[in-house]
């Protein structure tokens, strides 16, 4: 603003140069993402056209599965990203808030005997899971991290305490439920038909339908989960961008001292961040448990992919997390079916069944390490 009022050619050109460099970086990343999307599209088309006989490869289930997985990763990693940016340490206990949400869903699902009613009341358990996981996160901050923060402890100490907190939460859940797997109980009443009509079902008729021989499943719960995630994440972005509290929260995470001197109650903002972050992780747990059995250790298995999303998108950039979640989930899903196909192709005897398809879990890890080595600030992260 001041530059325009008082034009100075030398500084102006410098500013322009700097802008151009950062624009170039931005363009490069956009190109990378575009190339990635194009490659995955080509790959999927090739998959449909040529290899569907060999590969267990179906475009509908692939896309829906990817977005479903991305929704889970996104919900976990948004909170992780927010607290990482705000307080500055990698919170290993974050995955346990996921577990809290999942088990709240399991407990709630016991009390229904009609699936239609259950799905109609789904918003009750959403709020329950959000509040429960958020409260656990806030409690963790009040009891464990808060005193350490005020003491000025190092990030290392905070990290190790978060490991302790994670162990405690996970095992409290284990005491309550035992170590075995639990299911989100859906009473065996027939499900509503509309998603099958839209997407295509085993009967081979549907709007987006591709191949009638393929064996796959698109559950309406997946669609529900995706819709819910979009609603939640959209609300979060609206809250952060448009409301006064959200602006204060962003200011706090940008520069805590400056925010405090501007009269923002930073301690309250930190608590709010924990509540939102933990709550979103709880929602992720709920979404996960819609379709999958859950064990207390499951949260930890989602922790490292969540870190991968945070690092790939860039610490502090929530929009980066959205893109990164899509990238990581898509690459994991695509590589799973691809590796499965390879296994089927090369292993006629069945002796090595699954010898290579297990590697799909590694994909987020490899992306994580590669990103840290090549560009630690992530796709959309700020340069240090």
């Amino acid at each position, binding site marked *: 603003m001041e530059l325009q009022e008082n034009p100075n050619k030398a500084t102006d050109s410098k500013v322009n140069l700097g802008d151009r460099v950062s624009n170039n970086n931005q363009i490069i990343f956009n190109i990378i993402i575009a190339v990635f999307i194009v490659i995955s599209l080509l790959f999927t088309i090739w998959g449909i056209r040529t290899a569907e006989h060999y590969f267990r490869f179906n475009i509908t289930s692939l896309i829906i599965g990817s977005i479903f997985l991305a929704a889970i990763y996104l919900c976990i990693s948004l909170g992780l990203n927010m607290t990482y940016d705000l307080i500055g340490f990698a919170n290993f206990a974050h995955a346990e808030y996921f577990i809290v949400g999942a088990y709240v869903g399991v407990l709630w699902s016991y009390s229904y005997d009609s699936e239609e009613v259950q799905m109609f009341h789904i918003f009750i358990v959403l709020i329950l899971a959000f509040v429960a996981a958020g409260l656990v996160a806030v409690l963790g901050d009040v009891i464990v991290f808060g005193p350490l923060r005020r003491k000025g402890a190092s990030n290392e100490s905070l*990290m*190790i*305490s978060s490991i*302790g907190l994670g*162990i405690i939460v996970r*095992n*409290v859940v284990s005491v309550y439920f035992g170590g075995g797997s639990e299911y989100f109980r859906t009473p065996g009443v027939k499900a509503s038909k509309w998603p099958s009509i839209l997407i295509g079902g085993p009967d081979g008729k549907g709007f987006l339908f591709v191949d009638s021989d393929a064996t796959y499943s698109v559950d309406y719960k997946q669609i529900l989960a995706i819709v819910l995630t979009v609603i939640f994440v959209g609300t979060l972005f609206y809250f952060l961008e448009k409301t006064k509290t959200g602006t204060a929260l962003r200011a706090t995470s940008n520069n805590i001292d400056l925010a405090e001197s501007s009269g923002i109650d930073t301690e309250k903002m930190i608590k709010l961040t924990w509540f939102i972050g933990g709550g979103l992780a709880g929602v992720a747990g709920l979404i996960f448990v819609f379709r999958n059995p859950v064990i207390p250790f499951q949260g930890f298995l989602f922790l490292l992919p969540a870190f991968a999303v945070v690092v790939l998108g860039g610490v502090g950039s929530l929009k980066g997390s959205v893109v990164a979640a899509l990238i990581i989930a898509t690459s994991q899903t695509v590589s799973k079916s691809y590796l499965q196909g390879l296994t089927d192709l090369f292993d006629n005897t069945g002796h090595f069944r*699954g010898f290579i*398809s297990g590697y799909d879990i590694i994909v987020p890890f490899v992306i994580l390490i590669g990103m*840290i080595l090549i560009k630690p600030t992530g796709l959309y992260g700020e340069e240090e």
Partner: protein
Amino acid sequence: MSGKTISNEENSSNDDSSIWKEFNKIRNLNFENVFLGAIIVSGLITIFALITGNTLAIGLEFSVIIFLLLQSGQGYDEKYINSKKFIGVLINFVGMIIIFFAVGYNALASEVMIYVSFYTLAGLSLNLSTGMVGVLNFGVIAQIAVGAVTYAVLTVNYDVPFPIATFAAMFVSAIFSGLIALTTLRLRDDYFAIVSITLGEIFRQILKTEVTLRGPLIVYTNQLGEEVADFPTTPGIFNIPIPFADQYQKLMPDHLYENYDERFLIGIMGFLLVGLSYYFITKLIYSPYGRLLRSIREDELVASTYGKDIFRYKVEVMTISGAMAGLTGAYTAWLFPGIFPTNFLPTVTFFIWTVFIIGGRGSNKGILVGAIAFTLLERMSLFFNNQDWVVIKSLNDFIHSINPDHAPENIAMGYIQLIIIGLILILFIRFAPSGLIPEEPYRPAIRGLKLPKAGSQSEDLKSGMESSGG
């Protein structure tokens, strides 16, 4: 001038601290009594256990160990009290083992020996990388797993004798750690932590799916009628040979072998390994090289202004710690009946970190004491596994009242014990970050000249300024 300063200091310290010296004497005398008393009580308890075989002795001995550990070392003569505490805990631990055998818990005694050895070996490795140069190494289990799998594959599938396989395990793990360090050590601390824990998970996944890391080979006849050796279909390596097991079985009479079986042999070998590596790592830590490492940990900038290549030293130390972890890996291959991917979960890394934190970072004595405390804590839940206890019973009733259909029948004590471990980790970080036996400040004597005691630099400066000013 410097000589003058030092002599002045000696004089001044003699003048100033005469009262403190008196206090110190009384304090040391007191602690001497406490220490002797603890050992005598422990001896009495052991004799009581040997005569009567009463399990009460375990609880008594446990409380003696906790009492010794709770003795505060934060007085004037910290080093003296800590070394006495260390010796006291070691003696009591041996007493504990004897009591276990005396009251008939033979299997438990062997397990405690084995796990103390395991956690000490792993903790020493972590102490090199994290305690000495301050690298946030969360990939201990990856280093150990690489060593263990190397050892197991070599001995089971290729019949390599165990000393060569052990050295191969150390070598491979060292190379692995060195490579990790070379590529990722320039990163931020917390990024290195994430990368190392991720590498552990990647290796675990590879172990799950990679066929060539399985054993032993299965011989089957294919369609052509030829006999072909092939890798098994399920992950895991079984039938890992334990060194000296056959000779030991021949050597021991049968009635003794019943009580002191193979597991006991592994425990004894673990103690030997712990002794050896403890000796060498202590040598390393108190050498000029170790001082250099600690200087890097304290302030990288200062070390680099003295012309030291910090990155090189960090990579070197990670390599040495990798060799140590490889040795731990070979030991791991003996102590489990078979190697599975589930042996190398990241939780084991967290346990090793707990040992490291509660023992005292940077202090080898602390690691040993921490491993003893942690293992006893972990195994003690076997004795508290009593569902009729008021606390446990009321907790169980409470859970069943909320969750009548799906709650587990009985509360598994393993979970309660893990909760306690998590609590202890948090409490130690908050209230005693330097651990049970903190690292001793150490200054060597230079050419016979005794330097002032470490940890009082500000006082040195003050007295030096006063002398120069006067």
